[in-house]
């Protein structure tokens, strides 16, 4: 039981990484991307293929997963980001499906629907981080989440975050303020993609095997749900959302009711969460992060609080 809770925490961490990425794209940039699953898959397969075929260590594959998904983020982002947001949703949805199609069909590289097994465990300073002993793995995952959180939080509080917010609020006014809107949209997209790639890499080394069936559209919707539920434009909220959604996902197993609750229960619930949140609480549980400048609570000199 406790072990099971650790498992939920580990998955919360992996998904939190993806949710952080989705938040910078959707929460800050206001762009609806539906392809976190695609980048997740690219990261997973990068790690799976490089470790099993070429004998790389897990740590060596991480930057590859990062760069590869960033590159794909750029490739899919450049043609579509110049256009209205609605097209982006469709193009990214299509991209995710194509990635899975390719993984399913490119047998010589991906072993098709069978997937790749026997991915080695990560070794750090001679210590094997064994996914079966969940503690060490949990710590590793949360170090990643923490790093990503701090990086993104800083980025969001810098001029880049402000520029991205301006683009979301009013593209024309943002342009007239000297902001290169395409550049910032692509930045956000690449950032969101690359962190999902890292999440994929961690997923591969945690489950020790990858199959195309893991990377469905449902994953993208789940990640979107996490961001919307927690609150768009708030990184803490994304992590909270990831945890709640994972808890909901494993609710049947957690309560021992998996026999009596239909398999589609979670997905229907995710759909309901999206609709209900939009109507009743579009700002999410925690709401958008707001910042106060100067003022009584400040250091008297102003600056970011």
């Amino acid at each position: 039981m406790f072990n099971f809770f650790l498992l939920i925490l580990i998955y919360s961490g992996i998904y939190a990484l993806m949710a952080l990425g989705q938040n910078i794209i959707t929460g800050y940039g206001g762009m609806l991307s539906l392809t976190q699953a695609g980048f997740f898959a690219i990261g997973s397969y990068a790690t799976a293929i490089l470790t099993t075929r070429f004998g790389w260590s897990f740590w060596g594959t991480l930057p590859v997963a990062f760069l590869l998904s960033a590159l794909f983020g750029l490739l899919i982002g450049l043609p579509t980001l110049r256009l209205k947001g609605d097209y982006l949703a469709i193009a990214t949805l299509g991209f995710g499906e194509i990635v899975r199609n390719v993984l399913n069909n490119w047998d010589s590289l991906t072993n098709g629907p069978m997937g790749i097994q026997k991915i080695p465990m990560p070794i750090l300073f001679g210590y094997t981080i064994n996914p079966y002993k969940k503690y060490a793995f949990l710590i590793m995952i949360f170090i990643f989440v923490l790093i990503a959180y701090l990086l993104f939080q800083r980025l969001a509080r810098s001029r880049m975050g402000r520029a991205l917010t301006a683009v979301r609020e009013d593209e024309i006014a943002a342009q007239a303020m000297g902001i290169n809107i395409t550049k910032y949209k692509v930045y956000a997209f690449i950032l969101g993609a690359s962190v999902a790639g890292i999440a994929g890499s961690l997923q591969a080394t945690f489950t020790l095997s990858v199959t195309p069936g893991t990377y469905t559209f449902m994953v993208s919707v789940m990640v979107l749900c996490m961001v919307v539920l927690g609150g768009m434009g708030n990184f803490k909220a994304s992590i909270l959302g990831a945890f709640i959604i994972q808890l909901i996902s494993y609710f049947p197993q957690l309560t021992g009711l998996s026999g009596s609750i239909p398999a589609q229960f979670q997905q229907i619930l995710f759909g309901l969460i999206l609709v209900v949140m939009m109507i009743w609480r579009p700002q999410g549980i925690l709401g958008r992060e707001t910042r106060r400048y100067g003022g009584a609570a400040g250091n008297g000199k102003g600056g970011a609080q």
Partner: protein
Amino acid sequence: MILLETEALTRAYGGVIAVNKVDFSVEGGLITGLIGPNGAGKTTLFNNITGLDTPSSGKVLFNQKDITGFPAHTICRMGIARTFQNIRLFKELTVVENVMIGRHFKTGKSETKGRFFNAINSYIRLKAEEEQIYERASDWLDFFDMGSMKNELAKNLPYGRQRELEIARALATDPKLLFLDEPAAGMNPQETDHLMATIRKIRDLGITIVLIEHDMKLVMNICDTITVLNYGQKLAQGTPRQIKHDPSVIEAYLGKEEE
């Protein structure tokens, strides 16, 4: 000295010619008025100069440099800022954040290169940079007497204040040339008087101003020179006194007397 000029600038939408071979010039340091009946092509001319629209033909020269067809953000960076007829603030952001966005491209160039990957060790630098942006934004808010409203959401400001905030945001980009599209629209007479004083103060800072305005009292009072557009063409150009007595201008505004 001519700061900005257009040469035979034309913008056609299908068969409709919104701006037709307009030669428009702006003298540095002055306040230039751009007037004309509704649909005369004033805002289209603004948009074509500031890069939000691309001319069908003709040229835009800024400081003798051809900037025709440059993207809007590049033109802003060269020193041309603007406001909008239908206020375009970042509504969900606070007053000070709106102005801080105006400082965007003034910061973060060489000194912060590579911050992308060095976010952690640049903590101190980031803080300093943010403080600097904040200080400049605050100065501009003080200029408009809006220092106490810093943390209000832009959408919650009264209408007249929103117009002023938009000007403050544009000024935060340190422009040489400022375009104001109907700055007094929707203002009451007191607000308009206050605005006139403000525009003069901006001029006194050495910033050249071009404004579109329907309020003739304001235009005749503060403009050093006026250009009149009608049906997309330049009708007249001159001092307020000349324009006031130009028969073609009177005709365009009031219609012909006979018939």
